[in-house]
């Protein structure tokens, strides 16, 4: 039987044979570094792609090294080394590595152990110490040791930048059918060949697209190409850009990277900003298989400065207004009979009918009663409810909600309808000419809470201020007399706790305790 090389770590174990292992918060033995071995570089790319989908590659890249290594027993492998954070992060690496045919080991320096599994939930430790020789890396599994020697190293950033784009199918109905799925809903970039630049600009201008652009000199081109940025492009614009030969439509994947529509980068670039160093902008062109590095951050210029204007019409400024007198236009606001019915908002009750009103108030609903206001006038008593002004105040809300006020309910007197907010006209009349309601108040010179009453066509209108409006319920009810309460005084005061007063003790206060403690008495009492 083979001698086991590793032994499971026990729960709570803090000392390990292998240097560099330490328990994390859960008690799992984690080394300083992790090592993932992949059989081919394709699986490494698959691992990086899966990791970037799930988490940010920026966490991994600063400490990550990639090596092409040869195994002493034969064969090659790609080794990925990175710093190990804690058990949770290493668990995630192990899960992703397992899905992409990689093997995860933890350790440090040149010795790495198998990561924890079902048999050893707290990880493994060495049974006996191993000593690697030279540059080789020892990878210890349960029953065998593999030693790797690095052949060459790869720069992860350079590797990610050089990756070939993968084709993705486009919708049959064109890119405009689903711009959100293509990543073009908010912003689209277009690289226009030098010969097409002016025509494309003119076309976009005619389409009234919101675009900006600038000219970039691509490596190997004689003339500068035009890079366009279109915000919230419409479907028509996208179709034109995508269907025109010489124009490449690019979808932005991060702040400084864009990938040609119809292609996909194997790595999720939005989670790998460390892969794109500096301030340059990267255009991944799948059609020609190139990555364009634009010098410096893009400085787009608004589209209206890029097109040339050809219009010739000129606008004439208005010089001076004619000094005209508008007096011939002015007419007098008057009250005239009208046929259209209005909802009554108030009523004018003559003084001889006020006694009837006193009997009717018992029938008025409480909300309508609360919203009603009265104004005593020479002509009689005006009851106003639910005017547009009153509805704004708190008291009027009840009547507005009820849709009916006391003025509408009381079957007495002359009804008043509202022609403008707070402007009441006798029923069967209206103001002529029909100016805007707000203008009516302005023409009458009313304050914000004032009312105007046109009681008769021949009489002058009356202004009623807020202070002159008396609530109907307050005007009706006289002052109520309350009986004073009589409190019953209890015959006996409540019992109070006693209060300790310590008198002065003399020097001989303990006279009378000369003998020793008494023994138990006959009835069993005593000390």
């Amino acid at each position, binding site marked *: 039987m083979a001698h086991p090389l590793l032994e499971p770590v026990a729960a709570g174990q803090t000392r390990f044979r292998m240097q560099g292992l330490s328990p994390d918060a859960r008690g799992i033995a984690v080394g300083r570094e992790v090592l993932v071995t992949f059989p081919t570089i394709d699986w490494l790319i698959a691992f990086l792609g899966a990791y970037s989908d799930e988490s940010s590659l920026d966490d991994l890249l600063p400490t990550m090294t990639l090596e092409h290594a040869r195994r002493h027993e034969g064969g090659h492998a790609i080794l990925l080394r990175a710093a190990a954070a804690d058990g949770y992060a290493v668990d995630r690496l192990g899960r992703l590595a397992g899905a992409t045919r990689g093997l995860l080991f933890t350790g440090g320096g040149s010795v790495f152990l198998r990561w924890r599994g079902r048999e050893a939930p707290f990880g493994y430790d060495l049974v006996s110490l191993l000593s690697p020789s030279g540059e080789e890396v020892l990878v210890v599994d349960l029953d065998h040791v593999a030693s790797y020697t690095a052949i060459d190293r790869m720069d992860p950033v350079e590797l990610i930048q050089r990756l070939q784009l993968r084709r993705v199918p486009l919708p049959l109905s064109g890119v405009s059918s689903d711009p959100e799925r293509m990543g073009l809903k908010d912003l689209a970039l277009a690289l226009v060949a030098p010969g097409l630049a002016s025509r494309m600009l003119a076309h976009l201008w005619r389409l009234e697209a919101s675009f900006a652009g600038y000219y970039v000199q691509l490596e190997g081109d004689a003339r500068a190409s035009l890079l366009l940025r279109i915000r919230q492009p419409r479907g028509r614009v996208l179709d034109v850009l995508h269907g025109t030969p010489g124009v490449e439509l690019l979808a932005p994947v991060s702040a400084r990277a864009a990938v040609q529509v119809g292609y996909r980068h194997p790595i999720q670039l939005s989670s790998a900003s460390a892969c794109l160093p500096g301030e340059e902008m990267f255009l991944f062109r799948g059609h020609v298989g190139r990555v364009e590095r634009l010098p410096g951050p893009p400085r787009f210029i608004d589209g209206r400065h890029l097109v040339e204007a050809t219009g010739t019409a000129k606008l004439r400024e208005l010089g001076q207004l004619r000094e005209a007198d508008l007096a011939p236009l002015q007419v007098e606001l008057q009250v005239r009979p009208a046929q259209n019915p209005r909802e009554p908002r108030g009523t004018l009750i003559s003084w001889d009918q006020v006694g009837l009103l006193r009997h009717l108030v018992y029938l008025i609903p409480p909300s309508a009663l609360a919203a009603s206001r009265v104004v005593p006038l020479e002509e009689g008593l005006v009851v106003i409810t639910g005017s547009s002004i009153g509805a704004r105040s708190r008291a009027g809300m009840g009547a507005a909600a009820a849709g009916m006020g006391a003025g509408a309910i009381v079957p007495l007197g002359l009804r008043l309808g509202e022609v403008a907010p707070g402007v009441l006209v006798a029923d069967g009349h209206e103001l002529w000419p029909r100016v805007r309601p707000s203008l009516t108040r302005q023409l009458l010179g009313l304050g914000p809470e004032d009312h105007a009453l046109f009681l008769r066509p021949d009489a002058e209108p009356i202004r009623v201020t807020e202070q002159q409006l008396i609530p109907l319920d307050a005007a009706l009810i006289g002052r109520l007399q309350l009986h004073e309460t009589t409190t019953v005084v209890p015959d006996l005061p409540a*019992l109070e706790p006693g*209060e300790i*007063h310590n008198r002065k*003790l*003399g*020097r001989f206060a303990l006279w009378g305790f000369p003998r*020793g403690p008494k023994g138990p008495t006959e009835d069993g*009492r005593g*000390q």
Partner: protein
Amino acid sequence: MARSLPEFLDEFVLPLLGGGPVMIDGPLREKDLELMLEHAQELARPELRFLRLRRGQELVADPELPDPDSDELRLWMGLYNTLVFDHPDRHRVWSRTIVWRRVEGTTRSLLTLPAPTTCDGALARHVSVGAFFELLRQDMVVGSGGSELRAVGQELPRRILRVAGPGDGIRSEMVRWHEQGHAPEAQRAIEDALRASPLTCVLLPLAAPPGWSPLAAAEAFCDRAMVRAICHRWARHRDWVAVGGAVAGALLPSLPNPGRANAPNPAVASPRAAESPLALPGAVLPTDPQVLAGVAGALIHLHFLKVLELDARLGVAAVSRDPGVTAFLALPLVLPFIESATGSPLGGLPEVADAQRTGRDHGQAPIARRWTEYLDHLQELVPKSAVDNLLASLVPRIVQTS
């Protein structure tokens, strides 16, 4: 210091019961008791009976207190001597330490009284001891912060008043005597006073001496009016969970051990020293099922009162690890098992569904719902082992279990 019974009643007992200045002077001797009993007719003074009755009426409506007797006089004298131990002039007394020990022995002897046998007897003890725990003291204080002079229950000395100015912060503080620090002798005497009044221990379980059990006040738990008063007094306490926990924690250890009950009688067992008991058995507490049902029912009723007050769910949010508190919280969960003996908080009321159908729902439906919700809340909160413990220890002593 000898003094007559009328003087003692006027200066100590009547102010203790009815309020007013309680004068503390030198300690009383055993001999003073004999002297006082020569005027025993003074114990029948109407104002003394009246004050005792009013004190008793703070708990129950019509208490039938026994007339004051020599035992009650001994209790008053013991309480008086307890206050002497906290006298600020003790250090001025020209005496040896052994004499103070004799004073303590006398005091504890005075406070050692037979257990009350009736509910009214227990109430009569509580009338005095309960008033004793409510005593106040007015202290005069000069200075502030670290350097202050406190005249404990006295006026400030004239020499201090002569030199003290308005900037010295002369003030008077009213404090509750029981909550202040005490001399060791006074502390021991307080425990004796509480042992003499089991009903006071029930009403103030957080102050009860160690080894106390609510079963010592068994007769109080058989009186319906008294149990109601006890429940409401518990419910007035802000930390009612701790109060209930103290009662439950004192109750469970005092239940007799069934294994010990079956031990062979030492009289008929072999006379060998190894098997004979080392000491005589202590006071045997009554374990009548009716008494145990009264205690358990009172504790459950305390839960119900708090549910009525809408205070229960908040109060029981944090469970302590105290076994007494845990047992107290687990008690309502064993109610279905002891319901036949204790009754139920909602017993006697029609079922909610019946009440709604007949239209005679007088508002008990929300109470029943809150009580059910509270029980569910306790079910989540209390560990199952606590309920099992009660089912094994307490329930078989209340009802017959199969």
